[in-house]
């Protein structure tokens, strides 16, 4: 009897596994389950195997040959080690895959490496059928300092936003000309001047305007009143010398650090020649941070009612405006708008859960469209839905009614916090969008099987789903199913690609730009329709084709484009183009639109400065490039 080819290969897998813990102790049946499902992949030295941006991992990896290094990504320590090298027989990422969340480490091949890969669902099943493996994984996870992904993300985005406000230079923070006295002045006169000027800190400087010391209000009690200091003596005898100074180019962050390090509340600001330019107090820095990300976030999380959340949503807008004015990049800005809006939505849901008892119901609140892609601007309306599991013992109608009532309240609260109700009724309170996982599959399946124009339009909205609250695993299952349906379906992908190519970049043959011929908006370009969407639609086709789980356009480009061999520089240029268009949209919405017309994406190229016009042209060229790629790939 001849051994079949799969048997031969499974046997080689098993031979390897039996030599390495914890597989050497694995129950026979479970070991065989594992052995017949392990596929082998090759990663050349210095290549990425798995990164946090990849989203919840699709595979559990076991190093077969070579070396893999686990590296902390970002500066926040989750584990005790900074890097860890894994060799043959060692598996990763156990924690992330068990929890169905993105890995906190980046995994890189440090030499030419072969890895066994087990699909995530099989990994979870393996834990169920193998007590020894489950024990191994549980111990492994317990040994990690368990910090959730949410906490990490908060820290990252907070830092991004805070660094932006805290990078303001001290020269722009100094509002008043400095009040100072010469060192020889009597202490009494100096104190009188302090009262007169209403300052909490008196700087002391010589004739050359160079500061030599400082006296603060808190010094007065300890150094003058209590010891009975003679007020006729010069201030030089009682001041703190030398004072803490910083150059006017130093940042607010530097000042905060200096204050924290030395335990002082004032910093003297000097120019390049060491001349006194002003005084910065702790309170000045505090004012700067009043609408910082951390503050808004904590006010959202502690909000007791919708009124408090309404204030927070105003603050989000104000902060966005400040950051835009300071020139923060579109990527960071949309990321943190997205992070804050997520937090706001979660809090609204939590508040509503007090009134709606959904205990024990497996469900998740989904965001679609731009919110699903983490790309919403401040003038986007609601696009949401619900996915839930119908327990065998439950009646569907009552459960669905409960979910719908809950969704209606959440939708209304979101509307009162500045997310307008969706005119197309793409909202969780719509019975058509509050569906079980099977119903969602059926709906998606119909669109994929019969890609008529309306189905394709739906796909562009609903396939970009993301969980805002609830059980992430539901969406994860749906996504895996969706990608398995679209990946091997060239007809559907071609239809999606054709749809994505419906609109071309507005690049003119004679003039730089083709402007809208709608007489209502003379000389304008709609940057959503003729800009951002070109990238978004093309990236979605790429993601559905290559099985990328991420929903954000840039991630889809990066990962999907990488998989079909597009050079990294080319993809980076496309991402830059997309970011620039997003930035123009945001700038236009927040800075230029006084009338507050929601969703105004119309920009007049003639109003842009020369540099922006050139970059915009280049951005459109990048859009044309990615469209060209689609045309070639699908022969459209």
């Amino acid at each position, binding site marked *: 009897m001849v051994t079949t080819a799969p048997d*031969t290969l499974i046997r080689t897998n098993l031979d390897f596994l039996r030599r390495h813990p914890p597989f050497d102790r694995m129950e026979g049946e479970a070991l065989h389950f594992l052995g017949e499902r*392990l596929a082998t992949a090759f990663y*050349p030295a210095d290549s990425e195997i798995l990164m946090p941006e990849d989203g919840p991992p699709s595979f559990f990896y076991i190093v077969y*040959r*070579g070396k893999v290094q686990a590296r902390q990504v970002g500066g926040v320590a989750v584990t005790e080690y900074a890097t860890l090298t894994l060799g043959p027989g060692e598996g990763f990422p156990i924690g992330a895959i068990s929890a169905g969340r993105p890995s906190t480490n980046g995994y890189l091949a440090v030499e030419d490496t*072969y890895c066994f890969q087990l699909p995530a669902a099989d990994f979870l099943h393996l834990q169920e059928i193998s007590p020894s493996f489950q024990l191994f994984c549980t111990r492994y996870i317990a040994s990690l300092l368990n910090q959730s992904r949410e906490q990490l993300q908060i820290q990252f985005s907070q830092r991004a936003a805070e660094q932006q406000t805290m990078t303001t230079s001290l020269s722009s923070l100094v509002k008043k000309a400095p009040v100072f006295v010469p060192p020889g002045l009597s202490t009494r006169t100096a104190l009188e001047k302090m009262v007169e000027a209403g300052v909490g800190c008196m700087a002391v400087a010589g004739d050359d305007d160079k500061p030599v010391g400082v006296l603060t209000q808190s010094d007065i009690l300890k150094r003058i009143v209590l010891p009975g200091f003679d007020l006729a003596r010069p201030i030089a005898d009682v001041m703190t010398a030398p004072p803490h100074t910083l150059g006017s180019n130093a940042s607010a962050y530097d000042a905060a650090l200096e204050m924290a390090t030395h335990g002082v509340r004032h910093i003297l600001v000097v120019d390049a020649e060491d001349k006194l330019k002003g005084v910065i107090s702790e309170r000045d820095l505090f004012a700067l941070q009043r609408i910082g990300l951390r503050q808004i976030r904590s006010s959202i999380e502690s909000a007791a009612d919708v009124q408090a959340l309404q204030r927070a949503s105003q603050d989000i807008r104000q902060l966005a405006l400040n950051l835009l004015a300071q020139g923060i990049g579109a990527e960071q800005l949309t990321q943190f708008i997205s992070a804050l809006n997520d937090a706001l939505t979660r809090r609204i849901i939590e508040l509503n859960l007090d009134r709606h008892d959904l205990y024990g119901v497996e469900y998740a609140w989904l965001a679609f469209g731009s919110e699903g892609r983490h790309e919403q601007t401040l003038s986007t309306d609601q696009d949401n839905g619900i996915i839930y599991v119908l327990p065998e013992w439950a009646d569907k109608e009552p459960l669905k009614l409960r979910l719908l009532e809950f969704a209606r309240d959440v939708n209304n609260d979101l509307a009162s916090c500045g997310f307008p109700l969706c005119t197309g009724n793409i909202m969780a309170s719509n019975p058509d969008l509050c569906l079980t996982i099977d119903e969602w599959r059926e709906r998606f399946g119909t669109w994929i099987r019969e890609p008529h124009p309306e189905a394709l339009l739906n796909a562009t909205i609903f396939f970009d789903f993301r969980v805002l609250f609830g059980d992430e695993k539901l969406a994860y299952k749906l996504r895996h199913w969706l990608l398995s349906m679209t990946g091997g379906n060239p007809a559907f992908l071609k239809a999606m690609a054709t749809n994505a190519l419906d609109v071309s970049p507005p690049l003119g043959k004679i003039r730089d730009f083709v402007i809208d011929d709608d007489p209502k908006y003379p000389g304008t370009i709609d940057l959503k329709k003729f800009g951002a969407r070109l990238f978004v639609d093309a990236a979605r086709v790429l993601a559905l*084709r290559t099985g990328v789980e991420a929903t954000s356009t840039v991630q889809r480009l990066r990962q999907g484009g990488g998989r*079909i061999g597009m050079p990294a520089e080319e993809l980076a240029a496309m991402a830059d183009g997309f970011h620039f268009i997003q930035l123009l949209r945001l700038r236009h919405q927040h800075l230029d639109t006084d009338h507050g017309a929601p969703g105004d994406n119309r920009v007049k190229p003639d109003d842009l400065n020369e540099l922006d016009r050139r970059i915009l042209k280049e951005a459109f060229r990048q859009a044309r490039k990615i469209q060209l790629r689609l045309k070639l790939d699908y022969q459209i």
Partner: protein
Amino acid sequence: MSWLSRLLPGSGPDLSPEQQASLAAITRHPGPDLGRSHFETRYVIVNAESRPMDGGGQRLIGVGAVAINRGLLHPAESFRAELASAPADALLGLLHFIAKAPLVVYNAPFNQGILERGFEQNLGNVPAMEWLDLMVIMPSLYPERIAGQASMDAWLSAFGIERLDRHDAVLEALAVAQLHQVALARAKAQGLNAPQDLLESQTSRKWLRGS
């Protein structure tokens, strides 16, 4: 069967109606788009098992094959057949497993030659296939490792690939498949993104070598 008899009308192997239908099904099957990326291409790695014939030459006695799909080598995606009892069915099985995917071998003059002869003798005309020979491609992708033509063992040991059993056609195909994964990684880095690119590079390389 002499080479002349094949040219005579009505000659060639006798295939049953089922076998003919099976062969026709493969011929009808649309071939893959060779301009797609490696990630989207299913490659089939084949290895021929042969025995010396009386009077010289080699006779095909078995085949082993494994596939690489989306960069992954999965145990279920493999094939083995012996030609002893029903060679036509064995080779039809192989053609169905290949499903017109581009083929990868080490040492085409031997493997491709003996397989093509086997197809011709047992099935008559079979659809044309694309063959990639790692013996030709590897030195152009990794000239810093081995510059010229080298043995399969030399390349396997350069990348630490174990040759588990040289008498098992499936395990031999497995070793070549692992080598092909290495080849694909470098090909992509060099901008040779699709099977088409590798085939072209192979042709120019053969041309240069004058073979």
